[in-house]
């Protein structure tokens, strides 16, 4: 599905990612954890194609294609979905209109017939249940006046409608109370399948109580310094990140 090899990237000449390598197979859920400023969001942004980041070295292959050579909209159309840490407001554009345009752009790219208003509405009604989305959020401008929890829930709703092959969830748990967290996590779990991979970027372990990953990677100073099974998350929760650091400095490279 996704193969990241020695990826170096940064903003305005400041290197943030320092040689990341990661292999994600279909159906796998990978959690990327790490302290603030370790480069988690940068990694998510680089994969989605955010233009403010420049890649200085390394390759990313997605479904056999050179991901870094693709425009962000083409990545999206090819099935990469980023759930934003800070979903963006688009005043005057209703959520449903936005999502319909989005879905149809993706369908068109894949040679599928575009959905008309009625078909779209039927699809949406069904998908709304996945994250218990309130009907009113459909007809309101995208993210405008949404609470923090509504915004995050809406991101997962978008994911449910767009059915990506690779979903990257960037701190989807931040700002959620425990009930909202459970709803969002349930939504993601319902969307797990053998063909769909998920990268969960998070600061805290608690999200991983609900979305149980196949692998956990620890990102520090732009490198993956430790990888392990889901139990690694629990260990991090207990001991923090500091205990890994010396080990990383000793070995000087990622696992």
């Amino acid at each position, binding site marked *: 599905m996704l193969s990241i090899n020695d990826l170096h990237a940064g903003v305005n000449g400041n290197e943030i990612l320092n040689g990341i390598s990661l292999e994600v197979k279909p159906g796998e859920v990978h959690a990327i954890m790490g302290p603030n400023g370790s480069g988690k969001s940068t990694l998510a942004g680089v994969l*989605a*194609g*955010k*233009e*403010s980041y420049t890649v200085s070295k390394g390759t990313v292959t997605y479904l056999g294609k050179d991901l870094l050579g693709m*425009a*962000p*909209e083409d*990545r*999206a*159309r090819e099935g990469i*979905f*980023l759930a*934003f840490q800070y*979903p*963006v*407001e*688009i*005043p*005057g*554009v*209703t*959520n*449903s*209109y*936005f*999502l*319909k*345009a*989005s*879905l149809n*752009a*993706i369908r068109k*790219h894949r040679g599928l017939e575009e959905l008309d*208003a009625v078909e*779209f*509405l039927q699809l949406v009604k069904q998908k709304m249940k996945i994250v218990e989305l309130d009907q009113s959020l*459909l*007809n309101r*401008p995208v993210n405008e006046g949404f609470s923090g929890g509504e915004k995050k829930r809406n991101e997962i709703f*978008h994911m449910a409608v*767009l059915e990506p092959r690779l979903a990257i969830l960037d701190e989807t748990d931040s700002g959620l109370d425990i009930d909202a967290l459970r709803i969002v996590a349930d939504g993601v779990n319902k969307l797990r399948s053998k063909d769909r991979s998920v990268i969960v970027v998070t600061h805290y372990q608690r999200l991983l109580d609900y979305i149980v990953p196949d692998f956990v990677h620890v990102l520090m100073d732009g490198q993956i310094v430790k990888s392990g099974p889901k139990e690694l998350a629990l260990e991090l929760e207990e001991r923090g990140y500091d205990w890994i650091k010396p080990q990383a400095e000793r070995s000087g490279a990622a696992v």
Partner: protein
Amino acid sequence: MSTEQSTIESLANREYKYGFVTEIESDTAPRGLNEDIVRLISSKKGEPEWLLEWRLKAYRHWLTLEEPTWANVSYPAIDYQDMIYYSAPKQKAAPKSMEEIDPELLKTYEKLGIPLAERARLAGVAVDAVFDSVSVATTFKEKLNELGIIFCSFSEAVREHPDLVKKYLGSVVPANDNFFAALNSAVFSDGSFCFIPKGVRSPMELSTYFRINAADTGQFERTLIVAEEGAYVSYLEGCTAPIRDTNQLHAAVVELVALDNARIKYSTVQNWYPGDKDGKGGIYNFVTKRGKCQGVNSKISWTQVETGSSITWKYPGVLLIGDNSVGEFYSVAVANNRQQADTGTKMVHIGKNTKSTIVSKGISAGFGQNSYRGLVDVKKGAANARNFSQCDSLLLGDKCGAHTFPYIEVRNTSSRVEHEASTSKIGEDQIFYCKQRGLSTEDAVNMIVNGFCKEVFRELPMEFAVEAQKLLGVSLEGSVG
């Protein structure tokens, strides 16, 4: 940043598709302006003596006026003696039916998407087609006549309904109102006249399509709309012009009169040639539009989408005289490339419990300069008057400008005036969000701009909303949501 920039440029450089010229023989007045030209225009139209006198009085007053310079626009001085004030396509006699109209003219309007021929007419819209200085055709006249609605060219109204014209001409925008209004009053050549009698609701949209064709010619038309007690009319106005590298002056006057309980909804999609990307050519659109809510509970709404013209100088206003009368102004103004727009409204509250709403959306791109200039004037007797103004500016790129000049004068204590203003730049994060959802940059920009204009677009009649959508290169909101 770079992709954002290039989309904005491609939007800015989109072709002006109405820039063709119709090859047609014209009856043209000599260049320049003097009393003889005023007399010539009047005699061409076979006008009565009182109207000639009215014109001459306006002309003499105009001579004493100076061109206004307070607007936030700059352009080289206009030589009023180097302009042509009258140009009309040559026709044998006044055409009595569509068959007698020069086929070149009919073709022109078909090309513009305004078919005039009986079989192809736009359903539900009556059109008065004004070509340079004259009206060439008015559709659905008979049908409207049955209801007592008069919809005809201004010249015809002068001939057929002189009493009405005499009563209302200049009653909202007096001939001495301002420099351009005075000029128009002296040399106006044609335009549209609508009269909706007491208690009648116009069953269709009335519209005028203005076309400038001849070179170096100014277009000076007048529109006069009168809605009697309880009447209702929705009126649309569209404009295009050929691509030329010289500037052309368009100085129109529009007067609306609403009596007791009458409603007038006036919508404009202004798409005069805006000049090329370096600012060469284009129309100077210096227009005076004003409505008078004379009667109680009357209502006048202006909705405008201003995408064309190299310079726009335009402040459609409402005089709220009748108690409980309502004035509205909804505007989208685009200033792209080297375009300059100084536009807004004047709401003058005179009667009690009068209300006004102003929603202005300015979009600046390229090197465009967009100014909102609005006056809210609440007079002493306008007890409990209320105004709400909202002025939003959207910047695309970093070389354009947005300016807001609100003037608020309140002379009584029971009134409430609210003003909100915002300026935003189309955000890279917004565009990236859209792209991450599979939308192209262009679609993203269109969608964001469309969302920004939504409050104004939804005030437009359907036919025009579609046109406005095409003009801004945006897609309209779908039926869902």
